[in-house]
């Protein structure tokens, strides 16, 4: 009897311990590896940004905020920030809209659906460097396929490298090529996980297809849409490979017309100046910008998907929504 009671308390206690500690155990592996390979580099960068730090000579003394004020006073930094945003908008906006559209199409009751689904994901297996090589070849100013095709229909050649907007378009094309199918599949996976009951209920309600999509499916996709938007934002604002590969003889074009913030950062740290202090300051500024934009996107996307959400009618959806 007493033995029994003790056993029960023990098991209750164990269970309580289990409930308390299990979540931390589950997230521990991430944080342990990350502390070494992520946190340390981050803190190191934050520290260096307040120092006069030459890449090769190391620490040359405290700098206060001078690295930040210097960078903020550079027209080149602001130009890089503008370029980054321009390329980001040209890539992520059409990309997400196309992905949502394609996902909706693929969600239909298609024949040979596996074939179509795999087809759109094919660009994703091409390495970013290879994508850059391919499109750089296509967008060569004089000998490229894009201008040759344009010439066939009587359009005069476009300065894909020389001019600001065309160069942004060319780079955005590389990004869109590789990532649209990927985002499509992510959204599709989420769509597929939505209960058919919900949709059938909406159809019974008489909601037309587009309306069903807008009012029923989209709000339920919210966690995934947020995921896609946030990751696209972070990836887009950190864009480096594509513009770097687009022209290897200059750093972002001879006008700096497609120099992005990460290229600016790289050039400050590893370029002629070898100024790691300033490069770290650029990194911290970029971090702040990305967090701001991500937060803004998060708020915006929660707004959009909750505004017209007839949540009363489709209760189950709300419950399975984001945290």
């Amino acid at each position: 009897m007493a033995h029994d009671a003790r056993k029960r308390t023990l098991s209750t206690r164990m269970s309580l311990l289990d409930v308390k500690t299990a979540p931390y155990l589950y997230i521990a592996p991430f944080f342990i590896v990350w502390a070494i390979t992520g946190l340390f580099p981050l803190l190191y960068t934050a520290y260096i940004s307040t120092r006069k730090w030459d890449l090769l000579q190391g620490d040359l003394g405290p700098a206060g905020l001078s690295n930040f004020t210097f960078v903020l006073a550079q027209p080149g930094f602001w130009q890089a920030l503008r370029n980054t945003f321009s390329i980001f908008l040209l890539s992520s906006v059409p990309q997400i809209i196309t992905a949502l559209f394609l996902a909706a199409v693929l969600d239909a009751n298609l024949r040979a659906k596996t074939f179509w689904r795999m087809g759109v994901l094919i660009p994703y297996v091409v390495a970013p460097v290879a994508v850059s090589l391919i499109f750089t070849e296509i967008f060569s100013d004089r000998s490229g396929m894009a201008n040759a095709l344009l010439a066939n229909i009587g359009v005069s050649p476009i300065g894909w490298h020389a001019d600001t907007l065309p160069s942004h378009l060319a780079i955005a094309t590389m990004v869109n090529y590789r990532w649209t199918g990927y985002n499509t599949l992510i959204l599709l996976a989420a769509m597929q996980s939505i209960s058919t009951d919900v949709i059938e209920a909406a159809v019974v309600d008489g909601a037309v297809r587009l309306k069903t999509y807008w009012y029923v499916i989209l709000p339920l996709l919210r966690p995934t849409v947020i995921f896609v938007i946030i990751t696209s934002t972070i990836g887009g604002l950190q864009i480096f490979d594509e513009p770097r590969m687009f022209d290897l003889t200059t750093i972002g074009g001879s006008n700096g017309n497609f120099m992005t913030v990460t290229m600016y950062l790289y050039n400050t740290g590893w370029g002629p100046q070898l100024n790691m202090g300033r490069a770290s300051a650029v990194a911290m500024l970029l971090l702040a910008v990305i967090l701001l934009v991500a937060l803004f996107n998060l708020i915006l996307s929660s707004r959009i998907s909750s505004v017209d959400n007839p949540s009363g009618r489709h209760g189950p959806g709300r419950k399975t929504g984001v945290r």
Partner: protein
Amino acid sequence: MTKRRERREHGIRRPGWLTYLVLVVAILIAVYPLYYTFLLSSSSQIEIAKHPIPGLIPQGNLLSNLTRVFHTEGLDFWGAFINSVMVAVIQSASVAIFSTLAGFAFAKLRFHGRRGLLAFIVATMAVPPQLGVVPLFIVMAKLGWTGQLVAVIVPGLVSAFGVFWMTQYLSGALPYELVEAARVDGCSMFASFRHVALPAARPAAAMLFLFTFVTSWTTYFWPSIVLGSQNPTLPVALQLLQTGYAKDMSLIMSGVLLSTLPLLVLFLVVGRQLVSGIMAGAVKG
């Protein structure tokens, strides 16, 4: 256990020809650049320079170009291939497992600091990666790992992206009721993870596996710094195709083709299961 049933597609009627037209266009766009790579690798330096728009029919130099890749001095294709497979398999498995665990915790368990920690993980993705290289190299040197495959594998064992992905997926796909039901049934936390979360997470974890695999496979910069040419992964080995200042596009594109091919094969074999798995395995609430 989760309620599973045969996947039904959204929409009851079969779609019309317009839908298929849209898809055909999308797939042509997706495939052409890859086909373009194939056209260039079957061509020659001279032909490429003379014809900016390659003809749609491949030329006869593919085999000789591929042979040139294999015979490039110092390029050990198979050694690099095996290294790449090891890195990619270990990282993808690890990321899929740990992300599912953490994603389950963040999505469905209540614990102190949950929201803060998740926000923190997402914020870590925003750290510009370029600057991490020097401190990370210092860490690897202290551990004595430089030049070894482990230095490439370890930093990729977990991924903030993966955690975020699984969290978002599970918060949508796994109803609270199921988790609570499992708890009431007396499942331990781990048992409820295994019996409830794992089946629900499977399609997303499989996608994460594939995505991580592709990322590992195509990563160039860090392996090139920490491994060098003696013990390279595939992208590091293939850069030897561009030694010198004259680049022969037909040779380089053959290298691109060779490094993409294994992924395409994997994708055709696994991807088919995967893509249909996403559809079949999705859990309904």
